[in-house]
């Protein structure tokens, strides 16, 4: 890795090839730039940032949903966004692949640099962007098609030839292959909730994105299905940058490399708005939180 701000030319290869150990060349840098949160010391276990959020704010109509979020999201690691409900976790996540463009009346300001380029810029193509930054939602949302067609849908949309090998690979990556290999033509709705969610992850993986965003992917699932998905997240994190919104702190502690804690801040006239309280490595946040609100939340005094 270079210290150059310009995109690294060596990364023109598939992201899978990029070795992301704590490289000796990685310079000291601050990962956290949250307001009020002092930039942490050197964090050699986290790689260079793929996303750099700068003073991100979101309005839905006249309601300010999120204000002033600034943080870095390291490449090929799992970043968890936690916080009480209504703190704007999902809203922030949905900015990263411009899903908020689809919400009528939503306005996003600030900057989100992706590989050094502002993806919020109006001349960036959001459709193409979403092919590179995939997303898995809270509720499993398979299409009313066969399992195979579900996987192939995204491939066709992104101009990837849907070969049998690619379908299989995606399902293997999502730890679903053994369960469905004999019934690829079955309706996706015939799968259990946990299987449907893994199918949605497989569907996202098949597109070969660089980042996969996950919006509370386990909140609709039972504990066993949740563990299966957590394992799968850890397995694919070597190849993809994962950003996971969760309300489950144990889950965040189990899976994440970096944790961002968001909270709700009261405004005038009783309105409330989500802000970033603190961001740091999972160890820092869970063992030595700097922000009193983080500490209150993770020790169970709030929320």
């Amino acid at each position, binding site marked *: 890795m270079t210290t150059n701000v310009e995109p690294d030319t060596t990364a023109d290869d598939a992201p899978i090839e990029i070795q992301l150990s704590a490289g000796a060349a990685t310079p000291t840098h601050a990962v956290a730039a949250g307001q009020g949160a002092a930039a942490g010391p050197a964090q050699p276990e986290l790689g260079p940032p793929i996303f750099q959020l700068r003073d991100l704010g979101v309005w839905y109509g006249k309601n300010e949903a999120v204000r002033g979020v600034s943080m870095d999201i390291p490449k090929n690691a799992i970043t968890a966004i936690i916080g009480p409900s209504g703190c704007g976790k999902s809203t922030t996540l949905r900015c990263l692949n411009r899903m908020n463009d689809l919400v009528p009346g939503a306005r996003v300001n600030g900057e989100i640099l992706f590989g050094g380029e502002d993806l919020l810029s109006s001349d960036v193509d959001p*459709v193409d962007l979403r092919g590179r930054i995939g997303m898995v939602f809270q509720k499993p949302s*398979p299409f*009313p098609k066969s399992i195979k067609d579900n996987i192939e849908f995204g491939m066709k949309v992104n101009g990837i030839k849907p070969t049998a090998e690619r379908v299989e690979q995606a399902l293997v990556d999502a730890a679903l292959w053994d369960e469905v290999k004999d019934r690829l033509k079955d309706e996706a709705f015939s799968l259990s909730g946990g299987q449907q969610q893994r199918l949605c992850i497989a569907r996202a993986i098949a597109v070969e994105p660089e980042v996969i965003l996950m919006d509370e992917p386990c909140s609709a699932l039972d504990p066993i299905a949740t563990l299966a998905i957590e394992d799968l997240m850890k397995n694919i994190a070597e190849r993809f940058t994962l950003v996971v919104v969760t309300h489950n702190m144990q889950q965040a502690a189990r899976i994440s490399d970096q944790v961002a804690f968001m909270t709700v801040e009261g405004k005038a006239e009783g309105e409330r708005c989500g802000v970033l309280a603190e961001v740091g490595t999972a160890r820092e946040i869970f063992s030595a939180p700097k922000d009193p609100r983080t500490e209150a939340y993770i020790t169970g005094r709030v929320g």
Partner: protein
Amino acid sequence: MTPVGDPSGRRKRLGGSVGERAMLLALAAAAIISILVTVGIVVVLVGEGATFFTEVPLKEFFTGTEWFPVEGKYGVLPLLNASIVIALIAAVVAVPLGLGSAIYLSEYAPERLRRVVKPVLEVLAGMPTIVLGFFALDAVTPALQTVIPGLGLYNALAAGIVVGLLITPLISSLSEDSMRAVPNAMREGAFGLGATRRVVSLKVVVPAALSGIVASIVLALSRAIGETMAVTLAAGTVPNLSWNPLEGMQTITAYIVQVSKGEASRGSLQYESIFAVGLLLFVVTLAINIIAVRIVRKYRTVYQ
């Protein structure tokens, strides 16, 4: 005498006062009247139709290619054919218009525009069919005549177009309802994979809403076949076994109107004949409706 005044007072516990019970009985009777209507329709059509079929054999009725009551020729094919031709023209008009509007309103239009456009479309559905008949005769046919020289005043095309207009809101409204019932999560799932709005609409939403869409088209067809005034005015009253939409032709419904306008005396074969073709119309539309209900039941996916 019925022991209405049972002094033990036990009746009361059984379900309120006598007056209340009588009221309930009256309500139940009202509900049963609706069944009597159906029974009435079937009895009337089958009863009068049976008299007709004692004089005109079923085989002649269904295979005869000429409908010319004055000469005693009762082959229903020209009438049935005309009803089908006009319903098909109507479908050719209404399916693109209705589906296009449904996709636009459900997937593209801003909410405020949708709230204006949808009621406007429904005005068409509530338009009395006599008005559409007038429109066909007075505006559509003259307009078509400028494009198609030699087009007669009475033609199936103009009739089919206005019937299509009539059933367009039926298709758009029911299809849009079933498209909006597709959970947003499914759309977001597709957008999140990098799909465009067109792909989301055509490859995700439409397939997910397919049962409702198909059912709406089938129901619209049934409505088109039963439509009367527009086709009577616009397609004319000459039975004509032809697939050429530029010719005039008489539908089943137009024949019933034609006979009713005159004074066909009760009991005459002509009088019986409108019940016979009415029975055919009833069976055809009922069959189509049952198919529509089956489609919805069988292929409906229930989204939580």
